[in-house]
């Protein structure tokens, strides 16, 4: 096959728009890399035939690990011998995706020699995704990464690489230290990250506030979303400043868009019924100089989100309405110290009873939330109800109260 460094036909169309083009990047890589040259050829073939020529999965990996490498073979090895193996490696990203330039330079230098020289920062899992290498190069790549201080991330039926937003490192809205939590959970669950024990994948994502920049509510089995317990802090002078100086239409832009209608504006003062606030952050985002989250901060833990693979997409739903993430802890409310026990209870039940390729959200749907809560030892609470009359798993056992009354 002749060396191809420029895309043609349908593939070339993708270089013509005003936006960054992955095809342009592959073309640039193809100047010096044979894998990238064959990748252009194979992609063109796929675009013309409307057929995928990759086979994904298989048995490739590095010694001792069951995750981190995604096997990929091409079904046209004679035509495109340089991409006949094109395995992907997931590399565990640092919490919040902060790097020294030196670290990135080292990864780039290594990947130019050992792979296609193409990689993706960052994949939807959050990892660095090194795209395209051969089976004999897997162990050397792993060794090089280890020397640089990197480890492989998760793939397959494992705990996927925990991911978090930039948190308190760069964001004033971080209600807890997302970076610390992501790092600590990564280190605590190394076995679960590298050795598949689960029925299917399991993801943690840590968001510092309800803006949920890492989309944990939609993309992780267990979402940790920062929130607060007390009242929104209001700077009344700044609210007036927004209305008078910034000409902000507080009624239309803030009050009328509050999803729980818990706010009122009389032209001079903003009133918030905090009991009915769902902590969506809309008002705070709009008037960030006047409003701030409360001072009692922590996170809400939700469970069960997934993208559509075997079944349709699901959003996660509330499991723990408020968990305190930093000491001092109160004995009567869930705290960060209780987290390992909670995670263990969920994994134990899902591991034992979950079907092959059944995500935890699907598992809960199958067995019912009330049974699930019973089995992991959690009491149902009102915050778990998404909409009135739509969560049939919360039962009020009136008989129990009557019995208690009789005993008294």
């Amino acid at each position: 096959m002749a060396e191809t460094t420029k895309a043609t036909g349908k593939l070339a169309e993708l270089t013509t728009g005003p936006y960054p083009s992955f095809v342009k990047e592959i073309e640039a890589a193809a100047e010096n890399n044979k894998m990238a040259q064959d990748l252009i050829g194979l992609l063109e073939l796929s675009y013309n035939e409307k057929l995928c020529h990759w086979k994904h999965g298989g048995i490739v990996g590095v010694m001792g690990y069951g995750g981190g490498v995604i096997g990929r073979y091409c079904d046209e090895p004679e035509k495109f011998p340089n991409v006949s193996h094109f395995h992907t490696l997931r590399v565990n990203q640092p919490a919040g995706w902060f790097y020294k330039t030196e670290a990135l330079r080292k990864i780039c230098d290594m990947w130019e020699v050992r792979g296609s020289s193409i990689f993706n920062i960052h994949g939807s899992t959050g990892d660095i995704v090194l795209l395209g290498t051969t089976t004999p190069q897997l162990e050397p790549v792993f060794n090089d990464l280890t020397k640089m201080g990197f480890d492989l991330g998760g793939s397959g039926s494992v705990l996927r690489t925990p991911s978090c937003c930039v948190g308190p490192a760069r964001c004033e809205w971080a209600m807890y230290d997302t970076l610390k939590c992501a790092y600590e959970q990564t280190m605590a669950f190394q076995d679960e990250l590298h050795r598949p024990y689960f029925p299917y994948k399991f993801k943690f994502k840590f968001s510092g506030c309800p803006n949920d920049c890492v989309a944990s509510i939609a993309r992780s089995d267990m979402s940790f979303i920062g929130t607060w317990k007390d009242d929104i802090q209001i700077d009344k002078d700044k609210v007036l400043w927004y209305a008078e100086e910034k000409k902000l239409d507080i009624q239309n832009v803030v009050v009328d868009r509050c999803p729980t209608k818990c706010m009122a504006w009389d032209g001079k003062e903003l009133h918030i019924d905090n009991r009915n606030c769902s902590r969506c952050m809309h008002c705070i985002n709009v008037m960030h100089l006047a409003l701030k989250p409360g001072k009692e901060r922590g996170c809400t833990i939700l469970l069960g989100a997934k993208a559509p693979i075997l079944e349709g997409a699901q959003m996660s739903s509330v499991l723990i309405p408020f968990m305190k993430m930093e000491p001092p802890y109160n004995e009567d409310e869930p705290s960060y110290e209780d987290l390992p026990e909670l995670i263990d209870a969920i994994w134990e039940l899902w591991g034992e009873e979950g079907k092959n390729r059944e995500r935890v959200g699907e598992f809960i749907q199958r067995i019912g939330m009330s049974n699930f809560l019973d089995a992991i030892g959690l009491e149902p609470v009102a915050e778990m109800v998404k909409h009135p009359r739509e969560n049939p798993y919360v039962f009020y056992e009136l008989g129990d109260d009557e019995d208690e009354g009789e005993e008294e």
Partner: protein
Amino acid sequence: MSAPEFDGVIIKGINIMADKALVEQIADAMYKMIKDAAGQKQYKAMDLQKAMRELFPGKADKKICREAIKILITSERCIYTYFGGSYIELPHVEGAANPTKEG
């Protein structure tokens, strides 16, 4: 004065001296199960753990089974594979693997 009683060495909650023989025994039983089913059925880690609990009642707990699987993998008697989900199988060359010039 009598010598202090030797209790073994505890690593990750497992008394490796006392349980080593049991872990090896369970690893062998897991290996047999995988070998007997090769080409017909793929086992996940939890399938093996459940089977071992029946075979070694009261002994094959989660930690012991995980150690046994680790032994199978690090000794290269078995490998992890991914075909939709992750499985533990005998080492083999998959049909789709194209030979490379490098090996």
